[in-house]
């Protein structure tokens, strides 16, 4: 048994190193990857390591950037840089959780649809179709209006209803095609359970595609999350990029030239993080699918 596990990990490790090598050669991927790492470090390690001061100081409202406050102060005198550093963790964590939920739903029900076939397959495909057609953000906003969200986990669960349709279809297609192949037939012949087949035979083949879809899930979740916060549907907790954006907007920081930093900091933080994720994701796509590499 240990040799199988060993070979499993060795295979995974060699693929990881190959990916790393290709990523370094691709310039966009390189920038994207390190930008993502930068934001993750800023959001999760930053609060522990960097000096963050969230004290209000009504004598220093809307101060321009200075050595004391690198990004200036907000409408209550707080340091914007500190708010930006502290604000990433919440948003990113919720997005990660939502993407994980999405991926889990997609894999489970996609494989189920492919294995069960018939009625179940039809029903699952029907639901997928409906979710794909209904405009996603209004649907989420309306649902958030009914279900009064009280904590981050509920928010993540709601957001998890977003991105699973495309991945579900892909998983279902893959499982359907692999179902007839030899190695699955032999696994079935050896009387190994369905779970074994999914996890040991099919998923490793799809790992790249799942990873790419996971990152797309993160971007979708972040888009919807900040949108919901902006509409005022999520109970406010301070120091969160979305909340910062919402407060800055309702305080009219966009219309006053002195408060430029307050409105731009969350906007740029969110926008740049999304950009980094998508750039990194695109280069992953190019690496895993050589046909997508820009050919003349």
């Amino acid at each position, binding site marked *: 048994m240990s040799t199988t596990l060993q070979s499993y990990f060795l295979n995974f490790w060699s693929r990881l190193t190959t990916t790393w090598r290709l990523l370094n050669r691709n310039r966009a991927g390189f920038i994207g990857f390190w930008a993502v790492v930068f934001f993750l470090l800023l959001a999760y390690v930053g609060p522990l390591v960097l000096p963050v001061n969230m004290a209000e100081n009504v004598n220093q409202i809307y101060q321009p950037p200075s050595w004391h406050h690198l990004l200036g102060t907000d409408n209550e005198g707080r340091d914007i840089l500190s708010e930006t550093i502290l604000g990433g963790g919440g948003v990113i964590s919720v997005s990660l959780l939502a993407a994980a939920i999405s991926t889990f739903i997609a894999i489970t029900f996609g494989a189920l649809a492919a294995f069960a076939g018939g009625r179940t397959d039809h029903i699952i495909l029907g639901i997928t*179709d*409906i979710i*794909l*057609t*209904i*405009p*996603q*953000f*209004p*649907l989420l*906003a*309306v*649902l*958030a*209006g*009914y*279900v*009064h969200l009280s904590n981050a986990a509920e928010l993540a669960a709601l957001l998890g209803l977003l991105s699973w349709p495309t991945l579900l279809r892909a998983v279902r297609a893959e499982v359907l095609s692999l179902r007839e192949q030899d190695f699955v037939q032999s696994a079935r012949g050896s009387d190994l359970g369905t779970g074994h087949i999914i996890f040991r035979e099919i998923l490793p083949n799809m790992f790249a595609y799942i990873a790419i879809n996971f990152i797309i899930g993160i*971007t979708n979740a*972040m*888009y919807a999350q*900040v*949108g919901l916060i*902006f*509409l*005022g*549907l999520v109970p406010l907790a301070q120091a969160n990029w979305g909340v910062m*954006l919402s407060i800055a*907007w309702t305080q009219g920081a*966009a*219309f*006053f*030239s002195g408060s*430029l930093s307050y*409105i*731009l900091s969350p*906007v740029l933080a*969110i*926008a740049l993080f*999304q*950009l980094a*994720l*998508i*750039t990194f994701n*695109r280069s992953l796509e190019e690496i895993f699918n050589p046909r997508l590499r820009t*050919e*003349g």
Partner: protein
Amino acid sequence: MSVVRSTIQQILHRPTVQRESLWRRVAQNYVIKRIVRSIFIVYIVTSMTFFLDRLMPGSPIQVYVNNLVAQYGIAYDRAVQMAAALFTINLKEPLLVQYGQYMIDLLHGNLGMSLLSQGTKVSTMILQYLPWTLFSVTISLFASFIIGVLLGMYMAYRRETWFDHILSTLSSVFHSVPNYLTAIMIIVLFGVQLKWFQVGQMRGDLSSGVVPSFNLQFVGDALYHAVLPIITYVLTTAGTWALTMRSSTIRTLGEDYVLVARSRGLTDRRIALAYVGRNSILPLFAQFTIAVGFVVGGSVLIEQIFVYQGIGWVLGQAINQRDYPVMQGVFLIITLSVVVANLLADLIYIKLDPRIRTQD
């Protein structure tokens, strides 16, 4: 005589052509299937709002009724009646009757009444605000499609030049950044900092004092107020069209018939229009679904940012204030619009591309 007889015999004993029954052929017809599917989706959405209204713990109707009884001292029966007028769901009837009544009301166009704007029918509100969103969204979709397609083709013909690289990068950037952030940046950078336009004047659908009528002043004013949302929609979606068109054109350029056309001596322009362009556009129709959903979905936030009073803005306000009948009515109309738009795009696509017509 025998000719007549043998003819009659031939008719009577002819081998029957094996045709599928009419029912089966109807059921397999792609167009009918699509239409049925669209109706089904709308039906599911209406049932979903019924479910959310009525059967969820903390159902809004129950809360409303309890509120009327507790705060205003209204008798329970009377409160239920009032709620029934607003939500089109009468709590006193059995569940199935409620459901049936709800659906019938819907088909008659009765979407209930607003909780907060006393006495306003939801359908009235929708009719008042929907045209503005249709106006801006339709213009945006057409503009971004045309711009995207033209840019995409040009990028494909000039691939790997600096023009191609810059536009591809710009397209990706504008696609990745959330559209409402682009909207905020337009206001902050071009309106407030660079002062290219007066932000205050561009709010709303119309300037005050302008009366809706079919004259140039009205249309010009409406366009003036819609231009910022339109620019935002176009900026964030044209790039995607361009990139898809680019890759589709590159693929088409590699096809044999293009080579044959060139060798036949046709001008580049004719090839581009008649051969390459026509065939490259086809895959874009599949993207139309996503684009419509994206633009309509984004309108909820973008209209709020630009204070453009369309249906997206109404939905945002209603959700914020928990005005449930308005929420559901607008959501239903939004879904209906998207479903109809997708159906139209699908049907046009079927007309355009004979390859995907299933045999009948």
